[in-house]
């Protein structure tokens, strides 16, 4: 065997590309490439492609070749990602589980079917064969806790986003200048600014057609309850639970939420918020900004800053991030942030005949070279190394939206378990985004997030039985209050009683027990 590996190393040394890695230290199998089947499905890249440059580079380094066998590829792009879940269910129902299964929203799926034998537990494999993954988890024990299923095993390797900031408050600063107003520092000032946008005709067309606050996703409007010390979600998923001093709570049952909704209903009635906020949908930002109507929103740094290109069409157009206004009690918080671990990633199928090679392959993506490959593409093709840093080639940056270009070469796949490198995004964030991020870096606005729990079958049953109804009721009342068909203050006690009746406390109880089991150590 020794001789063979020496021979392989010599062979590799004379290989065509990438002389820097020619020593073959990334190679996992010798001789003929090992073929592993993969199911991978995501809204942006429906199936795994064997001709992606990133796959070819990984194949060359590791000698493992992934073969696409995806069933039920689904392009449906909805916020709940039901399309992906359907593809996974279809795969499972067909009885053929590929060697590797990668998808968004895979966590609950593997945690449910892993213990039944559909996926392999990874703990021992990682311990014995995956030094890089082991080191990563040892360094970040909370990630390990968040990954662990109710039976104590890990069933998938997640996509781990890097960077802190997701969404921010945005405002038309040119409108502020025009009306002689300062950037709002408190909730009262914010309200005054929005009212001025409504009444003082900042777009100058003589009509009060301005839409002071708008949102692409209506829960972003509900998120404004943070300005009255309420909460709208505990994680980057809307309407999620939150942890307060180790205790699970739901934000929609808190008093800050009540006060916030009461005030937001007032804003809505006064026209400070888009009348069509619940139905306008994803085109809201594009439409309202290009029509010179929208004043302020809460949205992602990178994509929102891009709208400053409108300054070529709309005279003076400037849409800039501003720090979260101080709440009624003086707290400034930004509720949304990038969550450090997503429910996306990949897992080893239960019938895989090469689990050791597969975990080594997963481990490869956590090596320095693998992580760079997952983030930036192929060296010399998409990026160059400059002073030890991966820098995108100019022609790659110019070729259109960089994240889309990366998906097309097989990088930044969220159906792959990898650790994102925020540097990839900084290189193509525009000055407005970087300016905003610097502003958010100055203040300490971010708050801790709830990373989710894994239920055992009994807890799952209780959760399934009650949570759907509770959630429906919460959202139904929420919209009714905002739209003014009912008064939150008058209804609050009934609302609490109804939540109790629908089983909120049973849901919280099982979440708490799952949480205690998962995060106690």
């Amino acid at each position, binding site marked *: 065997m020794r001789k063979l590996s020496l021979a392989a190393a010599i062979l590799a040394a004379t290989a065509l590309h990438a002389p820097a890695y020619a020593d073959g230290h990334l190679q996992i199998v010798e001789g003929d490439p090992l073929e592993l089947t993969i199911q991978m499905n995501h809204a942006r890249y429906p199936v795994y492609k064997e001709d992606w440059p990133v796959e070819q580079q990984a194949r060359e380094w590791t000698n493992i070749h992934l073969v696409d066998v995806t069933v039920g590829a689904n392009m449906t792009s909805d916020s709940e990602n039901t399309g992906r879940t359907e593809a996974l269910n279809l795969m499972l129902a067909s009885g053929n589980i590929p060697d590797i299964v990668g998808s968004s929203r895979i966590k609950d799926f593997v945690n449910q079917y892993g213990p039944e034998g*559909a996926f392999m537990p990874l703990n021992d494999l990682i311990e014995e064969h995956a030094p890089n993954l082991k080191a990563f988890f040892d360094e970040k024990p909370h990630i390990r806790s968040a990954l662990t299923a109710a039976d104590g095993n890990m069933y998938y390797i997640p996509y781990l986003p890097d960077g802190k900031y997701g969404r921010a408050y945005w405002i038309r600063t040119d409108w502020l200048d025009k009306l002689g107003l300062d950037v709002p520092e408190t909730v009262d000032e914010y309200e005054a600014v929005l009212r001025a946008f409504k009444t003082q005709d900042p777009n100058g067309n003589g009509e009060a057609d301005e839409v002071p606050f708008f949102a692409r996703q209506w829960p972003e409007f509900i998120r404004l309850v943070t300005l009255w010390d309420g909460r709208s979600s505990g994680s980057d998923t809307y309407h999620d639970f939150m942890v307060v001093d180790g205790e699970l709570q739901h934000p929609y049952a808190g008093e800050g939420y009540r006060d916030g909704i009461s005030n937001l209903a007032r804003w809505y009635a006064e026209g400070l918020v888009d009348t069509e906020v619940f139905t306008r949908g994803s085109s809201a930002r594009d439409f309202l900004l290009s029509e010179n109507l929208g004043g302020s929103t809460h949205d992602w740094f990178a994509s929102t800053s891009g709208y400053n290109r409108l300054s070529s069409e709309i005279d003076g157009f400037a849409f800039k991030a501003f720090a979260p206004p101080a709440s009624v009690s003086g707290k400034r918080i930004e509720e949304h942030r990038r969550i450090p671990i997503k429910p996306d990633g990949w897992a080893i199928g239960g019938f895989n005949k090469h689990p050791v090679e597969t975990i080594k392959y997963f481990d490869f993506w956590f090596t320095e070279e693998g992580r760079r490959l997952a983030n930036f593409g192929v060296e010399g093709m998409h990026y160059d190394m400059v002073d030890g840093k991966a820098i995108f080639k100019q022609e790659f940056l110019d070729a259109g939206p960089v994240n889309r270009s990366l998906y097309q070469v097989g990088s930044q796949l969220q159906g792959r378990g990898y650790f994102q490198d925020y540097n990839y995004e900084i290189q193509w964030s525009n000055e407005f985004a970087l300016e905003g991020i610097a502003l958010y870096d100055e203040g300490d606005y971010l708050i801790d997030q709830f990373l989710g729990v894994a239920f055992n079958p009994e807890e799952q049953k209780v959760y399934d039985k009650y949570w759907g109804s509770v959630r429906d009721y919460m959202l139904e009342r929420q919209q009714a209050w905002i739209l003014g068909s009912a008064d939150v203050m008058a209804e609050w006690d009934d609302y609490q009683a109804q939540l109790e009746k629908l089983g909120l406390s049973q849901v919280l109880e099982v979440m708490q027990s799952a949480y205690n089991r998962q995060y106690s150590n």
Partner: protein
Amino acid sequence: MAPRNTRWTRAVDHLKREWQIYLMLLPTIVWFIVFLYKPMYGLQIAFKDYSIFRGVANSPWVGLEHFETLFSNDQFFRAVYNTIQISALNLLFGFPAPIILALMFNEILHATYKKTAQTIVYLPHFISSVIIAGIVITAFSPTAGIVNTLLGWLGIDPIYFLTKPEWFRPIFVGTGIWQEAGFGSIVFLAAIAGVNPSLYESAVVDGANRWQMMWRITIPCILPTILIMLIIRIGNIMEVSFELVILLYQPATYSTADVVNTWVYRQGLQSGQYDLAAAAGLFNAVVAFVLVMAANSLSRRFSRTSLW
């Protein structure tokens, strides 16, 4: 020869003579077996703790647990109530619409005008629900919609229709009529075409006007078709076209818009509770079966027209 033998030879003779017809029937039978009878095997998951991985046969039995969950849920009953209410409105307004349309088409004498009008009313049937929903959302938008613009001319403040529970049913039923009434009129037009022309000729001789001919000849002649269509319609009373509901509803309108199928979609499919969804589906099917049986026997008793 024994009678059994005679019957046997008669059947063989019959088959030899008519085999082409049975051959034509075959694809339909296969379709029924593959898509409707075979899946019935899976109905058992309504009584099981179903796991896709373990499969239908290997999942453990749980008895009536899923039905208990269903019947202890207020929102499920609200969904049942909404389904029946929307269907009843559909029946009341949506069922006569194609009949009236067919009668009206029948009275048009100008051929080109008739064909153009028919094409225009058939067209919405071929548009996908997603686009229909887009049209409806835009038309009823409080800022840009045509409906609110017209109301504005009358001095009425814009109404945010799609978030008002009281407006959901009219909008939904109206959309359904607009989309399907034209296409639905085809079957009645075919029935009208089958009426014996000599009836009209003798009526003309007797001095009947068009109105009298419609009431005394056309409608009585197509009544069997109307009744059969009604029975089928009643059988579908638990089926509201849920794609359109999902595209048009909001949490704010759940109180009137949430039907059994959308409830099942949210509770069952989105969270992977196929067993619960199957239980709700089975409940739906049983209710629909009872309704069809009732409608059929009523029809048989009062008009001697029935499905079977």
